[in-house]
């Protein structure tokens, strides 16, 4: 109750300053625009070589062409496609063999070739293609199944078979990088961009609760609060709740804004919300620690900036954790950012839901608890000597 009163006053004072309106509304919108430009869903060109692969190959091309945000560009032969990929005219290329339909209808496994440049956003594209191929594979498998049971030819049963699920696709994708020097495994990072930026921003903005707390201390107000029947933990909790609310509003603007306006993907909503909330809790706790341990708000502001950017860099919000050597990646997990980024990776890459990120969320909550306790100790020392 008392904490809520403190949080409410904190927010009321925040809202009274015009400059803060920029901070809480305009800044997130700028970030939305930035995320939209960099990570938003725009049509991606896919080069396809498909000369006489038969009806199933045509169907695959059509399916790809109908995929949202994806445009198919036909090429005559493989070498032309490779050149186009290398020069960046298309994002990636797919080669469908001439015997595609024949092999599949004979019950064999057809192999399509995937050509990509390293260092591009082609991973999402590849997922789209794999999905299309798998769809067809699933349907074919089922078609074969139906043909074997009931007789008749495969083609005539395809439509009916679309409703039957089968686990193993009949088509393999063979990956071949356009540039030999980089292996295909390196291409897994781009989909995380928006999330890692959000993590950076939420933490940074939370940390700016530190100068606010120092101001309240300097005005003699936290001391005065302690002269009332209010515990020091309640005071600190109230101040951090105020800051938490601000950070959450900003995060909500960024997530919802970028998703609606630019189609940026954030994965399962409950999972994403939980990650942001737990992580912002860590940020607010850090703010209380700085605000209790330091006594100059300029110092706190400077340190907030250094910590906010430094931890973000180490924690994989500037350069993806995947490119770090193993040992550095281990060390990176001293930052809360690494855990939040891991959680987002689980949600965005593997379609994880809330239950799949409980472990990193628990780590974040523990982190917040430890930092908040430390902050409480410093706060008490600072106010009651």
């Amino acid at each position, binding site marked *: *109750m008392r904490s809520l*009163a403190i949080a409410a006053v904190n927010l009321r004072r925040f809202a009274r300053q015009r400059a803060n309106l920029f901070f809480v509304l305009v800044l997130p919108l700028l970030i939305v625009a930035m995320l939209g430009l960099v990570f938003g869903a725009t049509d991606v060109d896919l080069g396809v070589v498909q000369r006489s692969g038969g009806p199933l190959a045509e169907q695959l091309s059509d399916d790809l062409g109908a995929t949202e945000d994806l445009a198919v560009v036909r090429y005559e032969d493989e070498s032309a496609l490779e050149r186009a990929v290398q020069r960046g005219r298309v994002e990636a290329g797919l080669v469908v063999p001439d015997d595609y339909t024949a092999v599949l209808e004979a019950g064999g496994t057809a192999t399509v070739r995937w050509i990509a440049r390293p260092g591009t956003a082609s991973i999402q594209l590849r997922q789209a293609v794999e999905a299309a191929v798998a769809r067809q594979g699933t349907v074919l498998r089922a078609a074969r199944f139906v043909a074997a049971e009931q007789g008749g030819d495969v083609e005539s049963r395809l439509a009916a078979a679309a409703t039957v699920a089968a686990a193993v696709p009949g088509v393999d994708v063979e990956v071949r990088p356009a540039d030999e020097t980089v292996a295909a495994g390196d291409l897994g990072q781009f989909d995380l961009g928006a999330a890692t930026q959000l993590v950076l921003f939420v933490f940074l903005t939370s940390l700016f609760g530190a100068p606010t707390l120092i101001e309240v201390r300097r*005005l003699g107000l936290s001391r*005065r609060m*302690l002269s009332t029947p209010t*515990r020091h933990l309640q005071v600190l909790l109230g101040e951090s709740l105020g800051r938490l609310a601000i950070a959450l509003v900003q995060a909500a603007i960024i997530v919802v804004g970028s998703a609606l306006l630019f189609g940026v993907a954030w994965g399962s909503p409950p999972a994403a919300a939980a990650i942001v909330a737990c992580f912002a809790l860590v940020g607010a706790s850090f703010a209380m620690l700085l605000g209790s341990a330091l006594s100059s708000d300029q110092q706190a502001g400077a340190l907030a900036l250094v910590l906010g950017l430094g931890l973000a860099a180490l924690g994989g919000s500037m350069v993806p954790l995947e490119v770090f050597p193993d040992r550095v990646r281990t060390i990176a997990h001293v930052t809360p950012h690494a855990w939040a980024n891991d959680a987002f990776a689980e949600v965005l890459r593997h379609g994880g839901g809330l239950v799949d990120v409980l472990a990193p969320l628990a780590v974040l909550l523990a982190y917040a608890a430890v930092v908040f306790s430390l902050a409480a100790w410093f706060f008490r020392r600072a106010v*009651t*000597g």
Partner: protein
Amino acid sequence: MSAAPVLVCTGLVKRFGDLVAVDGVGFEISPGETYGLLGPNGAGKTTTISMVCGLLERDDGDVVVAGRPLTTTSVEAKAAIGYVPQEIAVYPDLTGRENLRFFSRLYGMAPAAATERIGEALEVVGLADRADDLAGEYSGGMKRRLNIAIGLLHRPRLLVLDEPTVGVDPQSRNAILEGVEALAGGGIAVLYTTHYMEEAERLCDRIGIIDAGVIRAEGTRRELVALVGERDRVRLAGSGDLASVATACGALPGVEAASVRDGAVDLIVEGARGLLPELLRVAAESGGLVDGVDVHEPDLESVFLHLTGKALRD
């Protein structure tokens, strides 16, 4: 004063490193009584008050407020105290009323009762017509009055005021003093610190004279003044080398204390009438140009000078 005391503190000690800021301070305050801590800058008034209010970890001693022991972690016991800090502690970007509303919530007051009490507190300090202006836009005196209103809000049994009139114009000061008198008349116990002798004389039923962390003497004004005995306070106003004048006069037999303050030499002497010619002669010889002489009956200023050999203010 037969009622149980609202505040009992005993043997309070606070050290800051090597400095013993408060060294064994203790006193009691009964309901309706105003107790003054009178002492110069750095005497340990604020440090004492902070320990009384549970805002400062103490190195020794006990505090009991309204029958409950009180420490920095006490919660219930603090509800009995209204604390008005020496520095103005209000939110400058909230209105007076909003400041009061906020603290009413921290005191756990129900909203309806709070509204009523906020109105009353604003009346007591004379801020009712400016209640909805931002506190940051108040004059210094108005900020002080808001500072006090917050401490009154929940009708505390013990009101603690730490130099509430510092930097206030005479009119505001008078309003504040009248307010405190009215509250004490209403039965609350008041702990009041000041280094203004006149305030202590006017307001306080009992006064503790504190210097260097120790209460040198305690009692009613009459009791304290009796300590000085038949001594008078002589004030030699003038120019020239007043420091030498003080030293030379201080060495005379019959002179108990001498100090320089506000362009004058303050002396505590036994039998002013007989000593005056001698004092003026010594003053002239040691380079002072005396252009005015005052002889006072003893007051708290003289008591302080008598007890510590120093003026209350320098």
